[in-house]
């Protein structure tokens, strides 16, 4: 059916044009008898006889008359009926009927098209009985068998399609957590499910990262098992001796658990942290060829690939949402339609949720109307009020900036104090050392829990519109979380940035740890653990009893304390923060992604518990499409923040001399450039050309030209749409005008006829 294919294409490319075409060209079968009937009864119903509605109206009338057979095939078949009806005008009822049905039996040249048609029946909005009938029609109709290669091609297509369907079916059944997701969907709607799907997406991303790291970095280490340096053979070279010193330090094994939690002691000497990895180029022989595997090179390239893949994945996800946004943005106009026609979540099957949903839609409608009123009010606001409000907002924003700065200062202060105190500790005060070790992480997590509450309190004084409140809260909280991470990183930077003196392994002036990469890795590891522990504590120890209190007790006070809604933005931030730690940490602790996979899987259940057991549906609408793009955009911001320190470390900071795969190099990047210089000449030449002005400038110009071309096309299309819209409105007015005129005319005629009849009757009576 070529009509179907045409339709698809034109729908996308030139939907308007096609509409116009349909409007003018399509000569729908009209029915004189019926027309007359309707006009006699009610001239106002003339509108239902318009060609544009003829098909649908006709179908519904038919349907109501005999309760069976015809319904609307309009969409799928209009092109076909158009083609036919231009050649042959149907004049009686039966023929109309036939011409509107897709006359499938006529255009069956062979098996393949028949099969295609059967597949297309699936997309018709008709009932099962009719689909069956149409299918059997097609199957019973005579068709040619395909021959030779054609036959093979068709068979293959059919098999592939069937295979595809089967695979999809199986996959959808095997889908991870399908039941859990369904349950959440039923109770909280699709917006919240989007959040859980987001967790799932992150799990897959992390699994990918982990597999890459494991195969290319960890596995070679396990296979080749390089011996740690034992001899300090070159006295002049400090580096070698540093490594020997570091690896020969005795490790106390008596504090197993404490070390596990802090990542110190024995754990420091595992594949978990960067410091343990060798700087050797492994050699092995396969079939008499000498092969080399450079671990440092593998290490740095894997990290770069991981960051790149993450970036591409996020951008792809964000772009999808962005497209929706643009479509929606053009139709900011469509907010009410969306609300009413697409507002109901058909997946909901829980009564409470349904009542809640009704309330939510009500709130949203109210909110929209309210917002409109607010806009009006805003316009009418007096100058005095406006200045007052602006002053208030500036003041509150200042307070918030102060709070953020205060948080930064607090983190910095706690970090320096705790590391100093920890250095002064005696060896036997393990618990105290544990406490000091965790103090910065605890501070950060504590601030992340408390400060958003303060923000929430403050924002209520600013009198923003409800949608804007959500956004600004989100931005502020993201800012807080990322700022705390940056401060944390900066305070670490003060420790690791000092250049060690000639005869030192690590700078004693700054008290740089001997192996600072591992040191940073340990801190991130601790931060992740603390964060995770907080989620468990908050969900099970704090929020669970609260929800019990809410359910069991009827008193107002208990409900005030216990009631909690599923605050989507907060939970999203939790997850994104964890993922940021993962990106930040994978360079310093290559096995960290594995840990994050586990954490995320557990998080899924923790959040599910928080959602299903602890919370009630929120009274804010969460739209699946919108929230997903929101997740991705925040994730992108966090990714950039995580990327900066890692990039800086690779590019600028001198690796520690005692450990890690890069122990002999000035910076990690200098190692990369060194290895680049050892590649074959032609690769170097090629890359040189790519990066030279000779290539870059023309490429840039071409890109700009492309961009210009597409903006031009875009604006032209926009203009066209506007013109067509105006035209459509005009046509609509014309139509109404003509209809009114026509019905008036018919009425007059009827009156005239009546009068004539009456006068005729009078005359007859008179003559009689």
């Amino acid at each position, binding site marked *: 059916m070529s009509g179907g294919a045409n339709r698809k294409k034109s729908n996308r490319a030139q939907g308007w044009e096609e509409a116009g075409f349909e409007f003018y060209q399509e000569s729908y079968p009209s029915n004189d008898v019926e027309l007359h009937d309707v006009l006699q009864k009610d001239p106002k119903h003339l509108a239902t006889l318009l060609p544009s509605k003829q098909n649908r109206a006709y179908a519904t009338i038919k349907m109501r008359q005999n309760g069976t057979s015809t319904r609307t095939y309009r969409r799928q078949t209009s092109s076909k009926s158009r083609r036919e009806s231009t050649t042959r005008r149907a004049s009686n009822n039966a023929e109309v009927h036939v011409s509107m049905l897709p006359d499938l039996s006529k255009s069956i040249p062979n098996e393949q098209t028949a099969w295609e048609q059967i597949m297309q029946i699936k997309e018709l909005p008709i009932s099962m009985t009719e689909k069956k009938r149409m299918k059997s029609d097609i199957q019973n109709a005579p068709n040619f068998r395909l021959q030779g290669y054609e036959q093979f091609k068709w068979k293959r297509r059919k098999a592939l399609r069937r295979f595809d369907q089967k695979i999809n079916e199986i996959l959808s059944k095997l889908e991870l957590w399908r039941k859990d997701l369904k349950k959440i969907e039923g109770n909280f709607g699709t917006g919240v499910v989007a959040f859980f799907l987001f967790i799932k997406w992150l799990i897959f991303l992390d699994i990918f990262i982990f597999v890459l790291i494991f195969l290319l970095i960890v596995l070679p280490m396990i296979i080749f098992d390089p011996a740690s340096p034992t001899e300090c053979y070159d006295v002049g070279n400090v580096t070698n001796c540093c490594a020997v010193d570091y690896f020969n330090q005795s490790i106390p094994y008596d504090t197993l658990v404490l070390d596990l939690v802090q990542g110190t002691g024995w754990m420091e000497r595992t594949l978990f942290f960067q410091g343990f990895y060798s700087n050797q180029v492994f050699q092995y022989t396969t079939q008499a060829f000498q092969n080399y595997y450079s671990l440092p090179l593998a290490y740095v390239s894997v990290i770069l690939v991981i960051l790149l893949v993450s970036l591409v994945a996020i951008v792809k996800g964000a772009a999808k949402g962005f497209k929706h946004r643009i479509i929606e943005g053009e139709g900011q106009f469509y907010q009410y339609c969306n609300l009413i026609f697409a507002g109901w979540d058909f997946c909901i099957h829980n009564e409470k949720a349904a009542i809640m949903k009704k309330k939510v839609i009500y709130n949203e409608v109210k909110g929209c109307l309210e917002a409109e009123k607010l806009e009006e009010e805003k316009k009418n606001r007096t100058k005095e009020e406006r200045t007052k409000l602006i002053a208030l907002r500036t003041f509150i924003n200042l307070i918030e900036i102060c709070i953020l700065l205060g948080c930064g200062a607090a983190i910095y202060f706690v970090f320096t104090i705790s590391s100093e105190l920890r250095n002064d500790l005696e060896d036997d005060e393990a618990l105290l050392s544990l406490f000091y070790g965790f103090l910065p992480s605890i501070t950060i997590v504590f601030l992340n829990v408390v400060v958003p509450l303060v923000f929430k309190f403050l924002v209520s004084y600013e009198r923003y519109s409800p949608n804007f409140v959500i956004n600004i809260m989100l931005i502020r909280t993201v800012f807080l979380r990322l700022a705390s991470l940056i401060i944390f990183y900066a305070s670490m930077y003060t420790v690791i940035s000092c250049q060690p003196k000639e005869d030192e392994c690590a700078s004693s002036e700054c008290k740089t740890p001997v192996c600072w990469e591992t040191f940073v890795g340990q801190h991130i590891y601790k931060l992740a653990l603390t964060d995770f522990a907080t989620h468990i504590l908050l969900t099970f120890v704090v929020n669970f009893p609260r929800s019990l209190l809410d359910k069991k007790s009827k008193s107002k006070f208990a409900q005030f304390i216990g009631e909690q809604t599923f605050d989507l933005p907060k939970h999203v931030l939790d997850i994104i923060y964890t993922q940021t730690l993962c990106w930040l940490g994978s360079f310093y602790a290559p096995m960290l992604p594995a840990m994050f996979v586990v954490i995320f899987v557990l998080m899924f259940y923790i959040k599910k518990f928080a959602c299903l057991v602890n919370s009630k549906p929120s009274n804010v609408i969460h*739209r699946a499409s919108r929230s997903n793009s929101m997740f991705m955009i925040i994730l992108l911001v966090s990714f950039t923040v995580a990327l900066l320190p890692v990039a800086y470390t690779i590019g600028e900071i001198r690796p520690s001399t005692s450990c890690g795969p890069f122990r002999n190099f000035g910076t990690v990047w200098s190692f990369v450039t060194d290895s680049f210089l050892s590649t074959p000449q032609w690769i170097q030449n090629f890359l040189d050309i790519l990066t030279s002005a000779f290539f870059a400038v023309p490429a840039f110009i071409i890109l700009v030209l492309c961009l210009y071309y597409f903006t031009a096309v875009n604006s032209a299309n926009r203009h066209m749409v506007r013109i067509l819209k105006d035209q459509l409105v005009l046509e609509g007015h014309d139509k109404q005008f003509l209809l009114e005129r026509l019905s008036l005319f018919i009425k007059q005629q009827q009156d005239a006829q009546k009068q004539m009849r009456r006068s005729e009757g009078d005359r007859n009576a008179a003559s009689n």
Partner: protein
Amino acid sequence: MLNISAIIAHQKFKALAPEKVGHNKNAKLPMNKMLQYPELAVNPFGERICKVFSSSRDGDCTFEDFLDMMSVFSEAAPKSVKAEHAFRIFDFDGDDMLGTADLKQVIDKLLGNNKLTEREMQHLIQNILEEADLDDDGSLSFAEFEHIIDKSSDFAKYA
């Protein structure tokens, strides 16, 4: 052709009224039984949905009607089919246009017990028409409705 999903659907159908369905292939369930299906029970348009899909137009559904319903609401159904059925569901008076009366009923059902004032309702309907009524004739035709649905990214996910 029997397959697993059809059997599951039949089990669900049977669970609504086991005594009636039994082994009777052509059993017909009255609307109040149909409305016990959990998703329909809480759906504000449950009755309308039953009516649209019922082959006898009165809300009573045979198993085949039920299957039709399931297939339209399944994820695999194309958007055009969904739009077509959504339009029929919203078209309360069956005149093939969504007029102000239809819109009013849709909104009323959607909001349940939360009532809007008359002025707000007027305002809302006016806003909807302003957004979607391209040819300015005071009601939404199917083409206009489909246009909205095309632009709405949420529709495919929800309906």
